[in-house]
C-alpha cells in the first residue's frame, strides 16, 4: 500500500492542471451555455498526449498507464466536465477497445489517428429501447458479400456531433440476443450514416451528445472489430474501463466544487465573520474533503488493478458508484455553502451541480453498478 505518484505521473498532472486552468477554464461557462463542442480543446489536449493517455507510443498515444489517465481526466473535469467526458470517451470507449481487440491493420489505420487526436471517436451502443439492457439492442448488421449492411438508431452518443469515427454495436442475428452483437469501426462519412443536432441537456452540455442513424449503411468486413457475436463482450469490457474514467471525472467535478466552496466560505462574511468560522460550514467542508479523497483512492485502486492486468470489473463498479454518488453530495453542499449566489450562473458551482448529475447515469447507472457489485460479492 503506497500512494505516492511517480515523477512522470506528477509531471503529467501538473501539465494538465496548467492546461486546464489556462486553456479550458476560461471557456467552460461559455460552452456550457452555448452547447458549442470544443473541438479546438480536443486538438490541443491531444498535443499533450491526452487523446490516448494509456495507448502505447507506437500507436500515437502517450504510453502511460490508467492511473495517469485518471489524473488527466480529474484535472480537466475539475474545470470543465464536458471536456472531461469528451476525453474519457475517446480514451476509454474508443482507443481502449481498439487496442485490446483490434488487429494490427485496424490499430494502424484507426487507433493511431484517434490516439494522436487527428480523429475524434464516439461509442455507439445505447438505443432508444436499449439502455441498461444493452443486450436487447435492435440495430442490425446483415452480411452481404464483403460488406455488412447496418440499419438502426443510436441515442445519447457523446462526441456524436463532431466525431470522425464511431464504434458501432449491431446484431447479426436478433434471435441470438446478446450473442449476436458485433462491433464495427465506422467512419462517420460512410454513406447511409447520419447524425442529429446538438442535444441540450441538464449538464455536460458541451459534450456533443446526439443521435445517430444508419440506413442501409455498408461497412466493409475488415472494419468489424473482433468476431461476429463478440460485440457484447467487447462492450462490457470497454465499459469497465469507461467507468474508471467517469469515476475520475466525478472526482474532478467534486474537487472543483470543494475548492470553490472553501474559497467562498473564507471570503463570505455573515454575522460579522467569515462563514468558514461556523461549525455548520466546517462540517460540510470536512465531509466533502473526506469523500473526495475516498473516491479518488477507489478510482486509483480500480486503475491500478486494471494496470496489473487483473480483472477489475468489481473495482471499477465500486469506484464509479461511490464517486458518482459522492459528486452529487459534494456539489450539492458546495452550492449550499454559496447560498443564493450558488444558484446563479455567476458561480461555477451551479454548473458543477448540474454536471455531476450524469455521472450516476452514463456508462452504467448506479443501479447497474450495484448489480455488478452484488453479483461479485454474493457469488464469491
Amino acid at each position, binding site marked *: *500500500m*503506497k*500512494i*505516492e*505518484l*511517480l515523477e*512522470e*505521473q506528477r509531471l503529467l498532472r501538473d501539465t494538465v492542471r496548467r492546461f486546464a486552468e489556462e486553456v479550458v477554464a476560461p471557456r467552460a461557462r461559455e460552452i456550457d451555455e452555448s452547447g458549442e463542442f470544443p473541438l479546438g480543446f480536443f486538438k490541443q489536449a491531444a498535443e499533450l498526449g491526452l487523446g490516448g493517455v494509456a495507448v502505447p507510443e507506437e500507436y500515437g498515444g502517450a*504510453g*502511460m*498507464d490508467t*492511473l495517469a489517465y485518471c489524473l488527466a481526466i480529474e484535472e480537466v473535469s475539475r474545470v470543465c466536465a464536458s471536456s472531461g467526458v469528451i476525453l474519457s470517451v475517446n480514451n476509454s470507449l474508443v482507443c481502449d477497445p481498439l487496442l485490446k481487440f483490434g488487429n494490427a491493420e485496424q490499430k494502424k489505420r484507426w487507433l493511431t489517428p484517434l490516439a494522436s487526436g487527428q480523429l475524434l471517436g464516439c461509442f455507439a451502443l445505447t438505443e432508444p429501447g436499449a439502455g441498461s439492457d444493452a443486450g436487447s439492442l435492435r440495430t442490425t448488421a446483415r452480411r452481404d458479400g464483403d460488406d455488412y449492411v447496418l440499419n438502426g438508431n443510436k441515442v445519447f452518443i457523446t462526441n456524436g456531433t463532431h466525431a470522425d469515427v464511431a464504434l458501432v454495436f449491431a446484431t447479426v442475428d436478433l434471435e441470438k440476443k446478446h450473442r449476436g452483437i458485433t462491433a464495427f469501426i465506422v467512419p462517420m462519412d460512410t454513406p447511409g450514416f447520419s447524425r442529429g443536432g446538438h442535444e441540450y441537456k441538464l449538464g455536460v452540455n458541451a459534450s456533443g451528445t446526439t443521435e445517430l442513424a444508419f440506413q442501409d449503411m455498408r461497412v466493409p468486413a475488415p472494419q468489424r472489430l473482433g468476431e461476429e457475436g463478440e460485440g457484447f463482450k467487447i462492450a462490457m469490457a470497454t465499459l469497465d474501463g469507461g467507468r474508471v474514467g467517469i469515476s475520475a471525472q466525478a472526482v474532478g467535478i467534486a474537487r472543483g466544487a470543494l475548492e470553490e466552496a*472553501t474559497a467562498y*466560505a*473564507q471570503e463570505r462574511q455573515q454575522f460579522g465573520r467569515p462563514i*468558514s468560522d461556523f*461549525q455548520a460550514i*466546517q*462540517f460540510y*467542508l*470536512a*465531509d466533502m*474533503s*473526506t*469523500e473526495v*479523497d*475516498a*473516491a479518488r*483512492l*477507489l478510482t*486509483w*485502486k480500480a486503475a*491500478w*488493478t486494471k*494496470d*496489473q492486468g487483473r480483472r477489475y470489473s468489481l*473495482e471499477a463498479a*465500486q469506484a464509479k*458508484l*461511490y464517486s458518482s454518488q459522492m459528486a452529487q453530495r459534494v456539489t450539492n453542499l458546495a452550492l449550499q455553502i454559496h447560498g443564493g449566489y450558488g444558484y446563479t450562473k455567476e458561480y461555477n458551482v451551479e454548473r458543477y451541480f448540474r454536471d455531476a448529475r450524469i455521472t450516476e447515469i452514463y456508462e452504467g447507472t448506479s*443501479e447497474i*453498478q*450495484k*448489480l*455488478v*457489485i*452484488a*453479483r461479485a*460479492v*454474493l457469488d*464469491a
Partner: protein
Amino acid sequence: MTTDSVTFALTQEQELLRQEIRRFGEERIRPGTAERDAKRQFPADLVRELGEMGMLGSFIPERWSGAGFDMVSYAVAIEELARVCPSVAVTISVSNSVCCWPILEYGSDSIKETALRELASGKALGGFGLSEPGGGSDVAGMKTSARRDGEEWVLDGEKAWITNAGFARWYVVVAKTTPEGGSRGLSAFVVPADAPGFSVGSPEHKLGLRASRTAPIHFTGCRIPAGNLLGVEGQGFKIAMATLDHSRVGIAAQSVGIHQRALELAVGYARDRRQFGKPIAEHQAIQMKVAQMATELEAGRVLTRAAAALADAGHNDSGRFASQAKLYASEAANRACWESLQVHGGNGFSDEYEISRLYRDVRVTAIYEGTSEMQRLVIARRLLRG
C-alpha cells in the same frame, strides 16, 4: 512503465501477518467472543497470547522489544482482530496507539527502558487517561492536576472511560500542571499501576464492547518519579493531540474490520434465508444493500490504509488523512451494521445472531478517540489553513 509508486497490494510481510492474525482470530478468538460479551469477561489470556505474537508493540522498534511493524501492518492486524472481536481489537489498539506510541515519541530513555520495553514485549498492557467525567472533547478544560514535589509529581483527580483500566500495568495520563494555563498548562505522565495513591473504580456497563474493560481511574495524592514526565512540562496538550492523530488509524481499522464482518454476515444470511420461494439474495432490494455496503467498506479500507501509508512515509498531511479515515470508516461501519441487521430481519434483533452484538459494538467507533464531530473540526481546520 514501472508501477512501483501507487500500489494497493500488501507486501509479502503484511500479507503473512494478516493471515497469521486471521488464523489466530478464527481459531483462538472467535470461539469465545459471544460468551465473553455476555459475561463482560476481559480476554486476559488472548491478550497475553497476542503479546507473545508481538501485537502489544506492533510498530515499536525492535530496539525497545517491539515487533517493528509499519503502520499499514498494524492497521491490517487491527482490522483482522476487529473482524472476530472488536473488544479484543480495542484492547490491543489502546495499548499500542495511545500508551506505547507517546512513550516512544516523548519518553526519556529510562522510561522507555522500564515502561516501553515491558509494554512492547507483551509482558504488560497499557492504558491512556485523558477524558474526565466533566471533559471529553474539551481537553483543555480538564481538572486532574499534577504538582511538582521534590523529585516527584503528585497527581490528584479522576479520569473517566479508561480502556484497559485495572488490567493495564502502565498508563499515559494528561494532567494540569499550570492551573490557568489553558491548553499550554497540561503535561503528560507515565503512571505505573502500583503507584501509591492510584486506584481503579468500578467497571462501566456499556452498550457494546462488553468484553473490553472500561473504568474510571483515581489519583489521590498519587506519587510518581519526576522522570515519568513525557516531553517537557506544558507539552501535554500537544502530546495528547499527536497521540490521537496517530491512534485514529487504529480505530479506523477497527471500524473496517467490523464493517467487513457485517457484510459477511449479511451475505451469508441472504444466501441461506428463503422468502417468496427463493433466497433473499436474489431480490434486488437485498442486492442493492449488499452492493452499497461492499462499496463503502472498500472506501473505508482504502482511506485507512492510505492514512497508514502516509504516516509510514512521514507525510505532512497524514493527520488529516487519519481523521478522514476515522470519520468515514466509523460512520460507514455504523451504516453497514444497521443495514446488515436489516437484512437479517427479526433474527438480527436476537442475541443468537452475531450481527446484534456488532450493532452494539460498532456504535462507539464514532465516539471514542475523538467523536465524528471532533474529526470534522480537525479536518476543516487543516483544510482552511490551506
